[in-house]
């Protein structure tokens, strides 16, 4: 640790032999590294800001640039499971995630490390919800520190590339055999383009990492093994001792691998990078992208004659304790800046680990000060770094630390500020114009809905208000808005993560005139079931008036019924008095149009690219309405704003069933002009074409009896699927000759599913 970070050779524009100079972001560099490693498999689930890693890799794969097998998960938990299984089957595995994606899959990480299967995870660091925040901080990263994974930190796009490659070799080392996280900062690094270098072909990387050494293979019938036994005491502690020993081995393996890579690439990394630390009296320790800005601050203050320095880690698991002790020998005050808080621990996580490291040096007198910065992705400016050095200087001057732990960059707010009022609460009377009547036939038990008149229904107040930030022509709001015209009285809604939620509730604004809850992508239905049952219990206990009547509607879309299918089915099995509405827009639109399980075959998305070998999505669309029909809840329907009278009629029935019998599931065909790529104005025509080609049958299932509400053939409106596919940019390629077979398969599946619904409609027993 005697010399500072070598920087002089990074300034040259000319590439090193075999390498290319380019202008790329962190996510691009992660995917380039993955393509050069040519992992056998990537299991992933899209989550901002890591999504692009899979997107770029899929796009390269669609053009035959690598052989990485791409498996879209049903959620991050499932993706981690896919990765785990794949590692047991003896190959190189890659994943990328962020924030709640990491936490959702967290229980899988000790499985991966405890059974000793190496893989590489690119953690693109982001603030953990809630409230939901998509920008970069380290609240996800600190949750990953005790999982038995090696954790490397990449402060810029170049480092992302180098460390993803090095991680392969580190984790697979015979003395290590551990999975590795490469963490870089969401947006600051993942989406910022910098001048970078990378190898023009994968050979130097392949030579560097060598062939994968298979240990404990799950697909070797000649050598049957048991992976993951039931292991209580006295054995599990020894498994963990081994893991700890492997982590110890990694401490010496990592510098060696980094040195070897440095000799090949010309880019050198050390476990702890120090900058102007030799004679520094005050210093900052900071992780990842903010280290860059801090170095600029050091340069400026050095020019003013101040003895300042800084350090940032390349690895934090194992933690570079000895390197830190060496670097801090003569430091009088050190500010440890954490981009995450360990609430209640009187300091950020890194500050505690550094204090612990320094405690082991009996001669060390460094005062360590904890400052929390940049939560939720708040920018770290040059002035912030200056301010941190002032905190350290103050401690040196006074000989003590007055405020050992604090936040920087917060705002107290203006207590005299009165935010503009929204809308007065809608009364029950205002929301109950009494236009629609639902009557149950006493003999047949069937529901009859009267009064669906769209002119009269303009009197129904909008529970969702104007001023939301959806794209022009968004189909979500006509779909849900039209449904709500059929719902009388008080409404409480829960929307889980997705476009609809993001564009309506950007703090401090809300487009909900009624009470609204958000919970994460996978858990909306379960959350709403808790709301419903608490409401009933409080009514039972007399805490809420018996005659108050709320209709509970949970809204999902943007693929939320992929990751959230389990909890939604669970809620259906329990038959709560609530409505689940799925706006099916055939993709994860809030993260930039990745495939969802509802994306039909052949459709192009950012993770089902078309190219020289890519042919769009490889498997058929999920039929969520039939999944819910199979739970035998009282009422399941499909609907579309294009047949708004049908949809409003179904809404009125849904409310009746939710109030009197239990769970209702409705699937709405909701267009997305941005990602389906059609003009903003003609969403209804595109959706209608999807209905007229029988892709999206309009039907309802009451008490298990199916009624087809619209038969295009009977109305003389039936068209081939190609007449729908030609209306959208995401499917236009399917009209080309090379897609003939895929279109035929798609048409056959559409026809088969429609015929099935029709047969069910004609036979109450089906």
């Amino acid at each position, binding site marked *: 640790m005697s010399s500072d970070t070598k920087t002089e050779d990074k*300034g*040259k*524009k000319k590439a090193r032999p075999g390498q290319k100079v*380019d202008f790329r972001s962190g996510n691009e560099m992660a995917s380039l590294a993955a393509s050069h490693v040519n992992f056998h498999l990537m299991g992933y689930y899209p989550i901002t800001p890591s999504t692009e890693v899979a997107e770029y890799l899929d796009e390269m794969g669609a053009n035959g640039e690598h052989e990485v097998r791409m498996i879209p998960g049903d959620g991050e938990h499932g993706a981690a499971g896919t990765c785990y299984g794949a590692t047991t089957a003896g190959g190189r595995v890659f994943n990328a995630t962020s924030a709640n994606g990491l936490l959702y899959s967290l229980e899988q990480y000790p499985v991966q490390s405890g059974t000793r299967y190496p893989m590489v995870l690119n953690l693109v660091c982001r603030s953990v919800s*809630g*409230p939901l925040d998509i*920008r970069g901080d380290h609240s996800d990263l600190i949750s990953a520190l005790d999982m038995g994974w090696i954790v490397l930190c990449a402060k810029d796009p170049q480092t992302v590339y180098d460390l993803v490659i090095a991680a392969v070799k580190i984790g697979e080392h015979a003395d290590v055999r551990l999975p590795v996280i490469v963490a870089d900062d969401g947006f*600051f690094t993942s*989406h*910022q*383009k*910098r*001048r970078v270098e990378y190898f023009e072909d994968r050979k130097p990387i392949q030579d560097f990492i060598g062939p994968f050494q298979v240990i404990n293979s799950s697909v070797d019938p000649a050598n049957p093994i048991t992976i993951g036994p039931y292991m209580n005491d006295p054995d599990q502690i020894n498994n963990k001792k081994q893991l700890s020993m492997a982590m110890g081995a990694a401490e010496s393996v990592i510098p060696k691998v980094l040195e070897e890579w440095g000799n090949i690439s010309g880019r050198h990394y050390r476990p702890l990078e120090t900058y102007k630390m030799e004679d520094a009296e005050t210093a900052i320790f900071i992780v990842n*992208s903010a280290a*860059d*800005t801090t170095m*600029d601050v050091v340069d400026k203050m050095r020019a003013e004659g101040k003895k300042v320095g800084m350090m940032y880690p390349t690895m934090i698991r194992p933690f570079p304790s000895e390197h830190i002790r060496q670097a801090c020998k003569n430091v009088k005050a050190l500010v440890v800046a954490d981009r995450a808080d360990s609430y209640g621990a009187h300091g950020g996580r890194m500050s505690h680990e550094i204090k612990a490291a320094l405690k082991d040096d009996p001669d060390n007198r460094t005062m360590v000060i904890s400052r929390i910065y940049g939560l939720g992705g708040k920018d*770290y*400016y040059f002035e912030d770094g200056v301010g941190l050095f002032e905190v350290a200087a103050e401690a040196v001057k006074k000989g003590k630390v007055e405020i050992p732990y604090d936040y920087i960059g*917060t705002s*107290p*707010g*203006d*207590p005299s*500020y009165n*935010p503009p009022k*929204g*809308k007065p609460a809608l009364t029950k009377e205002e929301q109950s114009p009494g236009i629609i009547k639902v009557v149950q036939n006493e003999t047949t038990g069937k529901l009859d809905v009267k009064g669906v008149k*769209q*002119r009269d229904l*303009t009197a129904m107040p*909008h529970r*969702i*208000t*104007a*001023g*939301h*930030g959806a*794209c*022009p*022509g*968004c*189909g979500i*709001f*006509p779909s849900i*808005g039209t449904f709500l015209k059929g719902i009388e009285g008080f409404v409480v809604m829960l929307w889980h993560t997705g476009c609809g939620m993001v*564009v*309506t509730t*950007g703090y*401090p*604004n*809300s487009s909900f005139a009624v*009470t609204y809850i958000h919970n994460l992508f996978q858990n909306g239905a379960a959350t709403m079931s808790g709301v419903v049952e608490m409401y009933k219990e409080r009514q039972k206990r007399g805490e809420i008036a018996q005659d108050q009547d709320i209709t509970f509607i949970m809204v999902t879309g943007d693929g939320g019924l992929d990751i959230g299918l389990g909890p939604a089915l669970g809620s259906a099995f329990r038959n709560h008095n609530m409505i689940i509405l799925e706006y099916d827009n055939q993709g994860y639109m*809030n993260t930039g149009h990745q495939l969802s399980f509802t994306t039909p075959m052949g459709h192009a998305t950012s993770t089902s690219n078309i190219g020289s070998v890519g042919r769009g999505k490889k498997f058929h669309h999920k039929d969520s309405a039939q999944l819910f029909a199979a739970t035998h809840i009282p009422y399941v329907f499909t609907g579309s704003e294009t047949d*708004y009278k049908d949809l409003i009629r179904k809404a009125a029935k849904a409310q009746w069933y939710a109030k009197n019998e239990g769970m209702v599931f409705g699937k709405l065909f909701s267009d997305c*002009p941005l990602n389906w790529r059609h003009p*903003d*104005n*003609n969403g*209804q025509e595109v959706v209608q074409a999807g209905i007229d080609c029988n892709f999206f049958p309009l039907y309802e299932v009451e008490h298990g009896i199916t009624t087809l509400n619209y038969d295009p053939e009977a109305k003389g409106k039936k068209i081939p699927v190609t007449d729908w596919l030609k209306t959208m940019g995401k499917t236009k390629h399917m009209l080309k000759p090379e897609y003939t077979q895929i279109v035929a398969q798609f048409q056959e599946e559409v026809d088969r599913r429609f015929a099935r619904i029709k047969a069910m409609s004609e036979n109450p027993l089906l």
Partner: protein
Amino acid sequence: MANLPIVNNLGFYEIRMESVGGFGANLAGKILGEAGVLGMGFNGSNFSSYGSEKKGSPVKSFIRFCSPDIIVRENSPVIEPHMLVIFLETMLSYPGMLSGVGKDTVVIANTSMTPDQARDTMKLQTGTVVTIDAMKIAVEEKTRVNTALLGTVAAASGFIDPEAIKEYIRKNLGKKYAFLIEPNLKTFDRGALEFTSKFFEDDGKYPAQPFRAEGQKIGYMNQVIGGAITTPGNSIHKDLTVSRSGYIPVLLLGKCTSCGECDITCPDYCFVWDKETDKKGKEVQKLLSIEYKHCKGCLRCVDICKFDALVSRVEYEVDKKIIEDGYTD
């Protein structure tokens, strides 16, 4: 290699682009960054301010250039730009648009206004104002405003090589969009030629607009705990006109039957209704107007209206009174 005409104390020439999603500011920033770093040999960086990826929402793109031997470390947004590029005329008067702009800043505005008019709209204290009617060029060439603005950026910068940008326009359009290359290069050339530029001294007319002048009104002392919003539906105060891309629906009340279908199809809940008594003495719903503040110009309502009571019009040709009233007879 060209020299940067002016740099800040870290050695950067800094550009900030202000736009909304869908106008290509992100791509323009990428092309500019690639042209500068890979084409012209500067070092530099480029990134955009991201929220959720929505068309019509504000977006900023940042580009930094420095000499090739300087290491790029700064990764926070550009706060004192040497060049500010404003993609939409409607954004000129936005609060904070000019934050950090000073006498050395070149402000490029996509507008049909003169530099004097644009300066007054923006309330610029001092600096160079460059106006270019990029929307007109884009409409005529069937391209987007971003390419025209890149032409103006190159010409007004005094150091950016137009050929380098053209090379990266070609590369970004690639084989996939090869048919767009020629019209885009023409758009670029027109952007480089058809602008007007004027420098304004600080004549005391408008104050400076430094960065971060204002503190946050809601903070840890007055945020409702848990982040709950207790002002239902307060997004109604928002003005979304910036989301429109040139067209608006116009309501011809004389043809309207108040059938209610527009109210079904409008994603932005813009239609204003009230009760009236019809000829038979019955109380009925009557469509009164469009709330243009919330209209994003998607024209779904024009598509659905069976009575031609909603028609598509080029926004700047529509009488301002119609937009204020929300209808015409």
